[in-house]
């Protein structure tokens, strides 16, 4: 392998993933996303900057971090002053319980490839690597990463919100897991901060260029759990020439704990979880 010094900001690398594309995969989560979905389940991967997470339930008030002005202990209760935090990461290095963690690690393409190749023995014919996040295509360096992975014969998939043109990565990408968060332009704008027109334009442009896609459809009770939406997804799916199918993904509220750790309001809301009936209806219409 040539020395590849392109660096990418990685949130996490997870091995033995079974739900991020076909077969056994290693999923590389990237930091930074252009959208701000209200229901986001990986809120720590929205901003492109490195961030400090503080899991209060893990803190034992050992005060090893107290030498930093960002950490306050009022009556034994540990709080983080985010104004004063420069995300140097020293507190996380000292923290014995991992209550303090830094999200965002700059890794070279070579480093990432080395991690991904550890599980080559398990990938078999279908498995490989999935780039996820956050939004992997928000970092231009992913092209170099994909090139390096393909030159090692590793199957590649990208999980994308669809906000970016994919022509640069297309030659090195075996599958796009393409989010269809909403088909209603107004709702899409309201809940994600951006219109869905661009998402669909990119999708059809990618399809024209021969990109193999799978649609990823999150179903959120009270937001997009309606038949019209399902029908529109079905239409999109049928218009695409290279779509390999669609996955219906029920909303879950697990992202909330991580939002709280970032000092944000808890965005987990159990009332948004769709019922089994709703999921089955969505599957019937979308996948049917």
């Amino acid at each position, binding site marked *: 392998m040539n020395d590849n010094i392109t660096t990418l900001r990685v949130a996490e690398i997870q091995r033995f*993933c079974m739900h991020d594309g*076909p077969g056994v995969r290693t999923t590389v989560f990237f930091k930074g996303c252009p959208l701000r979905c209200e229901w986001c389940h990986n809120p720590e991967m929205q901003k492109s900057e490195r961030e400090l997470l503080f*899991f209060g339930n893990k803190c034992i008030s*050992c005060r*090893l971090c107290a030498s930093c002005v960002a950490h306050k202990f009022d009556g034994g209760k540990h709080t983080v002053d985010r104004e004063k935090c420069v995300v140097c990461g020293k507190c996380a290095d000292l923290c*014995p319980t991992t209550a303090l963690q830094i999200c965002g690690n700059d890794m070279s393409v070579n480093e990432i490839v080395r991690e991904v190749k550890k599980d080559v023995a398990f990938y078999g014919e279908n498995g490989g690597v999935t780039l996820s996040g956050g939004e992997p295509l928000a970092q231009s360096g992913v092209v170099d990463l994909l090139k390096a992975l393909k030159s090692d014969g590793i199957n590649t998939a990208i999980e994308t919100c669809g906000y970016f043109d994919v022509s640069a990565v297309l030659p090195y990408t075996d599958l796009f897991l393409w989010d269809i968060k909403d088909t209603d332009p107004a709702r899409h704008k309201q809940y994600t901060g951006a219109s869905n027109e661009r998402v669909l334009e990119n999708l059809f442009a990618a399809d024209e260029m021969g990109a193999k896609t799978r649609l990823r459809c999150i179903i959120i009770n009270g937001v997009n759990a309606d038949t019209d939406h399902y029908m529109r997804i079905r239409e999109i799916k049928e218009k695409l020439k290279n779509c390999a199918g669609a996955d219906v993904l029920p909303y879950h509220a697990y992202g909330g704990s991580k939002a709280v750790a970032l000092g944000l309001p808890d965005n987990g809301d159990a009332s948004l979880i769709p019922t*089994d009936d709703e999921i089955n209806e969505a599957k019937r219409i979308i996948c049917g």
Partner: protein
Amino acid sequence: MKTTSPGGKTVFASVNNISRPVRLCENTRLFAAESLGHKYGLETKKTRGVPLDDIEGFEFLTPCRKYDLAVRRIAETAPIRICDGELVSGSATLGAAISHLVPALYKGEPLCRSISHLTPDFVTVVRDGIDSIRARAESALKKHRGTEKEEFAESCLYCLDSFDIWHKRYLDVLREKGYTQNYENLCVVPHKPAKTFYQAVQSVWFTFAFMRLCGNWPGIGRLDELLGPYLENDMKNGVLTLDDAREILAHFFIKGCEWICGGNYGSGDAQHYQNLVIAGVDENGCDVTNDVTYLILDIIEELGISDFPTTVRLSSKSPEKLLRRTAEVMRFGGGTLAVYNEEKVIESMTKYGYPPDEARRFANDGCWEVQVPGKTYFRYIPYDFLQLLQKKTLKSYDGSVDFPDFEALYKAYISDVADLLEDHLAMLLDENMERETEGGWVWKEDIKCTVISLFEEGCIEKGLSYREGGPIYNIVSPHIGGLADTVNSLYAIKKLVFDEKKVGFGELMQILKNNWEGSEALRLYALNRYVYYGNDSDEVDVICVRLLSDFADLCKKIDGRSGYSFPGGVSTFGRQLEWSPHRLACPYGRKSGEVLAANASPTPGSDKEGATAMIRSYCKNPLEKLSIGAALDLKLLPSYIKGDEGIDALVALLRGFVALGGFFMQPDVIDAEILKKAQENPEEYQNLSVRVSGWNARFVTLNKEWQDMVIEQNER
């Protein structure tokens, strides 16, 4: 595993609510439900053993003679059991046998311990018949007449006669009750060579049942290799269908549940080492996988019988169908199926000195330690290497030792391992051997076991029993227990004291002596901030590799100094549970009394990178130097093995395990119940990560509300 029969329809439950396929007829399924439901086990328990008290002058007889008379009495008087509609006959009906004892009672006490941890020679029984064994015993007696071996040679024939008596009793009852087919089969087998698949099944079962009747717990070995040619022949001749063969074989499995007595057992605990090893190559290197291989998998899948712990021999050449069927059966949970990577096993055995054809024949002892079936005396001695580190090398943390660097500490520890193995050898010499003569070692008189000796090559000819050097290979394997805990302890000392200098050596010893009292931040730092064995981190894994390599070399050093060989292995089985209350605090953050690692698996809670990383760490070990084996336990969440993609995941794990050069792996699937336990004891389930699509979190890091949601998700 619970079995219900609502409205006559028998249902065999699984851990993950996937319904099991139905291929067997309802009668067979009901028979299985009864057998699994303790019917025959409770019946067996009613007669503990046969009384010997009326035998005049019994206490003055030699041990061998006592044993012979006990076997005779068992053969003559043990209850005969014919289950309604059974296709295969012969039953081990004496209760003391379930407790690993010879079920003949003198003054209310069983005569002696019985034999386990071996796979006897069923190949000779089925192919040549027991008459061929009698012929060998007769010529041996002629040879040994007038020597000190005469008594054992006579015992062989006496026990064969006893076997005939028991056989005759079954013939009489079967004829009387009109079990014509069973009767006709038993008129041929096991005395004469089996001619059909059905006879071959009956031959193995009847012989196996007699060994068990006399108290022994033998394994069965490579049943598909043995039976496959008979099935192929029958099908070619049009005398048997695959469905009929499945029914016959199912009865073999159901009969094997006749010792299940209920009580507080998990699904795997009602076993008596009646192991099967399926698929893989034969002694010439040809794949033996055949229809019987898949029938066995069918039966395990349908009935959920875990009483025949079955290991599939995989290799890089395994057919895709075998991998997929193995994965499909595994996903029902219960740990019924395990796998060998036979390439690594054969490599390790050949390196140890077995001829390649012998190595290719390997089966196991009833757990997973590999052996050449029908030729091997096997015993293992468990050692707790964590205890050795704590008590001997670190002097129970009393502060009397100090080490300038990690190297000095490691060398001191290895020197203690060497001493332990010398003690191991000395103990065995003292217990079992007199002296070495020109003719080899002279063995001390031991507990008698003629019945088993008949089915172990070498015993009859040498005039020596199974436990007295009779078999071709005589193995006493020293086993490392506490491997991961030891490696992690050494690594944590290296990091805390020598690399990062967070604490002085003496200071750390004091902290450990105080069970981390007052040093909680340092304890949590050690526990959470270092990456331990099982996470594919070379920095710690190299210590494990080095320790196992040095251990294997030290084992090799004591070979040839007695009648035994000493190939090393790694095991704890369930022993880590007994050890944990007695072990001191560990440098990696464990407090005294907390849970310990099993076998060659990571310390519970320290494996945070998932299944593939765990397999990679394990496979870095010098497994080719551990010719007995090292077992990896792999716990999988049911959500990982859902549907077709779940099968793909399991197949991928199995393929990876083989490609990376693993030895033995026991995958298991855990259900929502486990998650609930994890909720109660989060420390023990640190590694349990839960996933929904791209979201991920470690289960124990969620609060109660979220944990409940995930549990619910898994219960759906």
